[in-house]
């Protein structure tokens, strides 16, 4: 059987799960109180998080416990905990539902994380379009403040923590962690070059830890039930449950919280299977920045880092874009290229210039004016962007496209040779 909703979504079936009383009736903020009472030391928390084997849920999959241990809690000066809820990756919409159904888990997770790294202030950067989640989260902060769980000298512990919400303005690049920091600072959202990394030079130049929403919202349960419990839910190289956003050509798209390593087949079934009785063509497993996996490989893989890597792609943020057999892959690439062209911050040369080039060549191919050398040019230009840019956006813009050409070059060739799609009846 497929286990569902054991962690972030555990309250989803309850009325008004976003209210503090519901959260507290289900054991919420107990961990936070223990932390404040000194019953749970920061070192012990980091040990539990390491034991849980939770890897960053924003897409990069960096071990969270390790990331936290980079921060020197005792170092003097201001430090920050920042939650990345920008969730701009096409195909991803899991963090939105955490805000809607379980915002207090995130508040508690951020407060604990802040305590562990010695940050007395936190920022939650919410995607600009998420007005409703933004309101709910703001409300959650107010509730926590009224309950005395947030603010100065919380529960007489001597510890201060304050939480701010920052609503973005719609730029994809602000999901890149250093661009996000720039954006919070009121500057143009564009990535910083690294090093220095945020752990030494972050928000307002202070040491900062940035985690994804799902990561932080998982912390209270990890600490409540123990790192081992979380680890055992998952697979060897990745513990716990994972939220998967399933979209595209399925009957019931949505978010599903299942265990790491759940077979893709089962997840597809939860989403009602491929729509209109059609067959699966391929799937993008981790959001638009990950490589396309053809059906035959996808149906054999499990939803965890290693299995998807074996299938030739990346788990990313767990955002499945399912495509049925009638999908024109060239148009898919064109659509994605348009997105990256539009969302490039424009700062560094290869991404600023290269994404537009890719898009225009694809436009021309779809217009029926493709040339045989165009396909090699797409691969070549992609290669020239890859690795030469400041942040991951430029690299990401090439990944799905390159994999599409690898798997479906004949569809591109058909456009070039016949001036139309392989699906167009002549």
């Amino acid at each position, binding site marked *: 059987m497929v286990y569902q909703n054991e962690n972030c979504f555990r309250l989803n079936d309850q009325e008004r799960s976003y209210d503090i009383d519901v959260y507290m009736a289900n054991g919420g903020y107990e961990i936070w109180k223990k932390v404040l009472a000194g019953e749970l030391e920061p070192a012990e928390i980091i040990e539990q998080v390491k034991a849980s084997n939770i890897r960053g849920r924003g897409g990069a999959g960096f071990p969270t416990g390790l990331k936290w241990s980079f921060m020197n809690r005792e170092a003097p000066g201001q430090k920050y905990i920042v939650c990345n809820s920008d969730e701009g990756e096409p195909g991803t919409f899991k963090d939105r539902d955490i805000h809607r159904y379980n915002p207090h888990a995130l508040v508690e997770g951020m407060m604990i994380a802040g305590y562990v790294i010695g940050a007395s202030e936190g920022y939650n950067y919410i995607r600009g379009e998420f007005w409703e989640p933004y309101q709910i989260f703001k409300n959650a902060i107010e509730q926590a403040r009224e309950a005395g769980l947030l603010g100065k000298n919380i529960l007489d512990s001597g510890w201060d923590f304050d939480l701010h919400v920052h609503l973005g303005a719609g730029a994809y*690049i602000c999901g890149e962690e250093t661009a996000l920091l720039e954006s919070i600072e009121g500057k143009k959202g564009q990535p910083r070059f690294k090093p220095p990394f945020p752990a030494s030079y972050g928000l307002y130049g202070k040491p900062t830890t940035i985690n994804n929403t799902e990561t932080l919202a998982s912390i209270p349960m990890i600490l409540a039930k123990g790192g081992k419990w979380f680890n055992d839910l998952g697979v060897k190289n990745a513990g716990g449950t994972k939220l998967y956003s399933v979209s595209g050509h399925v009957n019931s798209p949505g978010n599903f919280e299942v265990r790491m390593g759940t077979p893709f087949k089962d997840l597809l079934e939860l989403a009602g299977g491929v729509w209109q009785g059609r067959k699966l063509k391929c799937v993008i497993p981790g959001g638009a920045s990950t490589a396309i996996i053809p059906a035959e490989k996808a149906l054999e893989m499990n939803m965890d880092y290693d299995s998807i890597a074996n299938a030739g792609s990346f788990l990313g943020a767990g955002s499945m874009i399912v495509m049925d057999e009638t999908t024109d892959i060239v148009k898919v690439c064109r659509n994605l290229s348009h997105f990256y062209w539009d969302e490039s911050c424009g*700062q560094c040369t290869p991404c600023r210039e290269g994404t537009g080039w890719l898009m225009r060549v694809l436009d021309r191919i779809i217009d029926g004016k493709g040339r045989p050398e165009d396909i090699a040019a797409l691969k070549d230009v992609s290669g020239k962007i890859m690795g030469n840019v400041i942040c991951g956006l430029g690299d990401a813009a090439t990944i799905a496209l390159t994999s599409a050409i690898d798997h479906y070059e004949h569809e591109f060739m058909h456009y070039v040779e016949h001036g139309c799609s392989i699906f167009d009846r002549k």
Partner: protein
Amino acid sequence: MVKVEINGQVIEAHEGDMLIDVADGAQIPIPRFCYHKKLSIAANCRMCLVDVEGAWKPLPACATPVTDGMVVRTNSPKAIASQKSVMEFLLINHPLDCPICDQGGECELQDVAMDYGEDVSRYTEAKRVVGDKNAGPLISTDMTRCIHCTRCVRFGQEVAGMMELGATGRSEWMEIGTYVEKSIDSEMSGNMIDLCPVGALTSKPFRYTTRTWELKAHQGIAAHDSIGSHIQVHSKNDKVMRVVPHENEDINEVWLSDRDRFSYESINAEDRLTKPMIKVNGEWKATDWETALQVAIEGLQKAVGNDIGVMASANSTTEELHLLQKIARGIGSENIDFRTRQVDFSADAKGFHTPGLATAIADVEKQDAVVMVGSYLRKELPILNLRLRKATLKGAKVIAVNPQAFKFNYDLEQIADDNGMVANLAGLAKAAADAKGDNDALLANVTATDTDKVNAEALINAKNSIVMLGQIAQSHADYALLTKLAASLAKNTDSELSILPIQANEVGANLVNFLPANGKNAAQMAQGMDAFLLMGLEAADFTDATQAGQAFKNAGFVVNLTAFDSEEARQYSDVMLPIALFAETAGTFVNINGNKQSFKMSVKPQGDAKAAWKVLRVMGNMFNLAGFDYTHTNEVLREVLDNRSTTLALAHLDAEMVSANNDSKVVMVAPYQMDAMVRRAPSLQKTPDANVATMVGGQD
């Protein structure tokens, strides 16, 4: 120290130095666009990507700190592939309009493309076109050519301290522009032209006049403020086409003020005087030098024994000023002066104090506290202001005692209230005197406020500090008193006291004693004289221009050594002798630090104009004065240096405290009204700084 290997060469470097600097030091070329040694690191152009062992992707040399044992290749196939990739990307949307681009021939994109670009582009899609911005009269924009290196943006933020340009928009549509359509008004704006690696920002006055490879470069010294910035005069066919900065780390670094960059336009002004002119029966006649000089000498000889006033612009060379005072004294006139904007000459009774700054220009950055008395330094001496700005960024406290709060480009404390400069400075001086137990009689009736005490404390605690008197103080009715108060403050706070020379050669004018030892000063002469001998001066150079003009008109005889033929000059002169302007003559300026900076002639003077020192030499001979047989400016300079004037100890000045607030009597001078040349530079005259009413910060 760490050891780094670049292309097989082992180099010692400081840990944390950026790779590009280490490579530059070893003369290993790495292509770059966004990197500039005077600006922060952006790492956005990606042109300097190099191959670092152990890194899977190429790293930007400008943003990669060196570590011990690092092995770098700037020319491996991987590095070259990355560099060529970036080059191709930079060129796809570049218009490649080099044949009609002013940057052609001195374009960094063109140069680097020679090495890293392909002959033919394989990009066949539509190219980006970007609307041009109106950036004002000095900078011409062609934003389609922009490669988004953001050097201009960083210059504004980091150096000029005026965030006038920024990047708006995303992706391909990211644009460099002024946020709201407005001109670029910084007094240092021209530097963006130099910084722009491509033809996106070019010089509007220079635009479309010459191809840069046709230009001849001459070393020169800037002629419009006492900094003595090093410049290159670029000429074609003996015509000055433009002026650009020449790097000198101790003085102007790589920068140049707009005033010194664009004033060259007046060299080619329509109203240049190109022939000697004499007035015959009220009619002006062009004539030859012999005749004109004969008329001049005869006229002046007739006036000998009466009051002859001899005045010159402080932008004249040391040699010119020396010869002119020598003639004046030779024909028996002690009425010699250049201080046309000074009002209070009461300090002269005790002697003269040579203005200047003992602290080296570069060391102004190291000051911990500075008090400006009567100075809008930003417009008076822009380069010095940049150095002071750097000091403030490192935490220096700057206090300005001014008649009004000006718009400085850094944080400072401006004391500019209705009490007036005298009272405010006295309060500060009193606080310092109290702290040091100094019973200065001058300050007996002054009380220090709490703010004064805090400020005095800061000055006393500062390791390096300066009290400087600027142009506004020098044209103040209570100048002597302000100087004495400043001297007291400087003494009790252990600060350097500096009277800032403003014009290019005020220090030189003092050195050659171009001052009225027992004669009339500039203000007295402006009330009327029997005859005048003027050099490079106009009525507009005086605080009361109307009065000065009237005095010239009423004089019996006026010999005018001038580069310009104006209606006004025709009205009051009897002889007009055409003289060379700064790029047309050899000579020496003595700068604010007392550095004697000699320069050669860059271009021939226009028409029959001659270098003023040559004209004066002949005049000296015609007056039969001894010692006028110079053949070279060096000989004149040697004579000057052999007999320097003494300086006055400012602490011994005579001055009484006054209760009146005379601040409102100060006549402010806009930076582009300072001398006859800038007044005739058309592009500068179109900017806000051309007059006091529109000057940036002038009306706050």
